[in-house]
C-alpha cells in the first residue's frame, strides 16, 4: 500500500495561551475507505517523535509507517472495515505548522516566536481537520504515549464526537519524573552553542544537543530487561576495552546511532515545544479530580498498559480507569505482559491486536445498532 501525505491549510487557529496562528497547515494520511454514513472513521494519534505516516509505504521515502504492524487489511485497525486517519501534530516538524515553519509576519521561521502550545491545541487542530473531512463523530480515537494523552483530551473536549477511546501506555497527568526526563532533553538542546536561541535555521542545527536528548529518550523507552537482552555488556567490533572514550559497548553504539539518525528527521525547537506541551498535561487540573474532568465524557474506553513500562507505568493507566469507573463509564482495562518497556505499544503487538480488534468490533456493532434505533 503506497501512501502519500496530504496537506490542508486553515485560515487560523486560536490557542490555549491566547495567541492565534494564521495560517496553519496540517499534514495527514488516510487508509481504507470512509463509508457512506461516515461512521467508520478512526483517528490515530502519534507519539512524541511520530508523524502522519502511520501505515503503508511512503511514496516519498519508501519507508513503512510507524504503526504499520497495527494498521492495514486484517490488522488491529482493519482498513477493510475502517477509515483510518493520522495527522502530524501542531508544533511538529513533519508537515504541520511548527516552530520551523515560516512566520508570515517576518518571512522567516518562527523559531522561539512560535507560541507555546498544549495537547488541547493539537486536538483542536485535529478537530478542524475531521470537520473539514465531513466527519461528525469518530468511531474511535487512539494512540500510545503522547498519542494517548491526545486521545484522552479528545474524549474530554469533544464528548459528542468520540464513540470510543483507546489510550495506550499513557497518563492523564505528567509526573515529576516524566517532566524531569523532558527537561534533561531540553537542556541538552539549549546547552548546545549551535542552538543560538533557536535561530539556527539558516546555519548549523544543534545536532549534538538534540542527539543527546534523543539518547536519554531511548533509554526511557526501553526496560532494564530489554536492554540486557538486546545489548548486555557486549563490545562493539572489538575484543577488549579500548581504554579511551570511543565506543566500547554495543549499547553506546546503539544510542549514538539513534541520536544521530534523529537529527536528520527532527527539529530541535519542535523537541522543546512538544515536550513542554506534554509536561503541561494534567487533566484533573491543580487540586481537582480526574473524575470531575470526565463528567461530560460519553465514550467507552479500552485502556492498555504494559508491565515493564517504567516511563508511563501501569498505575497511571489505573488512575484513568478508576476515574472512569467513578463516572460509571464503560471501560475495559488490561495490563499486558511485555519486556519491551514503553516501546511495547509499538513493537509487542500480538496481544494488543486481539484486544483492540475485539473492542472495535463491539463498538462498531453498538454504533450500527444505535443508528438503526
Amino acid at each position, binding site marked *: 500500500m503506497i501512501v502519500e501525505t496530504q496537506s490542508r491549510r486553515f485560515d487560523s487557529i486560536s490557542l490555549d495561551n491566547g495567541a492565534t496562528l494564521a495560517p496553519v497547515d496540517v499534514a495527514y494520511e488516510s487508509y481504507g475507505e470512509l463509508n457512506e454514513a461516515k461512521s467508520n472513521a478512526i483517528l490515530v494519534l502519534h507519539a512524541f517523535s511520530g508523524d502522519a505516516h502511520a501505515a503503508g509505504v511512503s511514496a516519498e521515502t519508501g519507508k513503512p509507517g510507524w504503526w504499520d504492524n497495527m494498521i492495514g487489511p486484517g490488522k488491529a485497525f482493519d482498513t477493510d472495515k475502517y477509515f483510518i486517519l493520522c495527522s502530524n501534530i501542531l508544533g511538529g516538524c513533519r508537515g504541520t505548522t511548527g516552530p520551523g515553519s515560516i512566520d508570515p509576519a517576518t518571512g522567516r521561521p518562527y523559531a522561539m516566536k512560535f507560541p507555546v502550545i498544549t495537547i488541547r491545541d493539537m486536538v483542536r487542530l485535529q478537530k478542524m481537520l475531521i470537520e473539514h473531512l465531513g466527519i461528525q463523530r469518530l468511531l474511535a480515537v487512539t494512540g500510545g504515549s503522547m498519542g494517548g494523552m491526545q486521545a484522552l483530551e479528545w474524549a474530554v473536549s469533544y464528548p459528542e464526537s468520540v464513540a470510543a477511546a483507546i489510550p495506550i501506555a499513557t497518563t492523564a497527568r505528567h509526573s515529576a519524573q516524566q517532566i524531569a526526563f523532558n527537561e534533561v532533553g531540553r537542556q541538552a538542546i539549549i546547552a548546545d552553542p549551535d542552538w543560538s536561541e533557536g535561530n539556527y535555521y539558516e546555519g548549523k542545527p544543534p545536532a549534538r544537543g538534540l542527539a543527546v536528548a534523543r539518547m536519554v529518550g531511548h533509554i526511557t523507552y526501553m526496560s532494564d530487561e530489554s536492554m540486557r537482552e538486546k545489548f548486555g555488556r557486549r563490545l562493539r567490533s572489538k575484543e577488549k576495552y579500548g581504554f579511551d572514550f570511543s565506543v566500547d559497548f554495543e549499547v553506546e553504539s546503539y544510542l549514538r546511532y539513534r541520536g544521530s539518525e534523529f537529527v536528520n528527521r527532527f527539529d530541535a525547537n519542535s523537541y522543546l515545544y512538544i515536550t513542554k506541551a506534554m509536561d503541561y498535561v494534567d487533566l484533573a487540573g491543580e487540586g481537582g479530580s480526574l473524575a470531575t474532568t470526565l463528567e461530560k465524557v460519553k465514550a467507552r474506553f479500552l485502556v492498555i498498559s504494559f508491565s515493564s513500562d517504567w516511563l508511563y507505568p501501569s498505575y497511571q493507566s489505573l488512575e484513568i480507569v478508576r476515574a472512569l469507573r*467513578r463516572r460509571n463509564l464503560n471501560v*475495559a*482495562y488490561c495490563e499486558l*505482559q511485555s519486556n519491551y518497556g514503553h516501546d511495547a505499544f509499538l513493537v509487542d503487538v500480538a496481544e494488543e491486536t*486481539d484486544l483492540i480488534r*475485539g473492542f472495535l468490533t463491539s463498538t462498531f456493532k453498538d454504533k450500527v445498532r444505535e443508528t438503526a434505533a
Partner: protein
Amino acid sequence: MTTAVATQRKPFVGELLGRSDYAIIGEIVEPNTMVLDLGCGEGELLEWLAENKGVDARGVEMSGVKVQRAIARGVSVYQGDIDEGLADYPDQAFDYVILSQTLQETRTPVKVLREMLRVGRRAIVAFPNFGHWSVRMSMLFTGKAPKTKLFPHDWYDSPNIHVLSVDDFESLAAREGLTVERRYCLAGHRRITMLQNLRAEVAVFLVRK
C-alpha cells in the same frame, strides 16, 4: 446456543453455555439493564447477555489472560480483585451484580456482598452447596476434607476458602437484613423444592437490600 430457561413452574432447568446456573441467571436478568459480573472469567455470560438481552455488560476478573480473552470478545472487563475492586463504583450504578461460583473464593465474602448491594440494586449469587449430602458423606466416611464432584480439589490447592451451604447463605442474608427475592436450588438439571440444603448441588439467589 442453548437458551432453555428455568421458570418457577418448570422443574427442569436447561443449560446456557453448558451451565444450568447461567440458564437461571439468563432468565433472571431483565432486558436492557446494566450488569456487572464479578469474576467474569472470559466474559462468556456477559457476551450472551449483551447479545440476547441488550444488556450493558461489564466485568471484573483477576486473571490477566482471561481479561485479555474477554476484551478480545468485545466485553468491557477490567483486571482487578473483587475483594478490593468495587470501591470506585458509584452507589446503585448497576441493576444487577452477578457473583457466579466465586463467593466461596473471596477473602471477605460479607464485605463483597455488601459492596455488591451498594453498587447494584440486586445481587445474583450462585455457589456450590457445601451442605450437599455427598459432602457430608465424604467427610463422615473418610474423615478428610471432602473431595466430591462439587468440590473436587484437595484441601491444599482449593480456591474455595469460604465454603457455605444453602442454609448458611439464608442465615447470612437474614443477618444482613436482605430480602431473598428468588431462590433456585438445583440438582443436575432438576430444580428441587424439598430438602434443599441436603439435595442442592448449586444454589442461585436473587437478593436485594
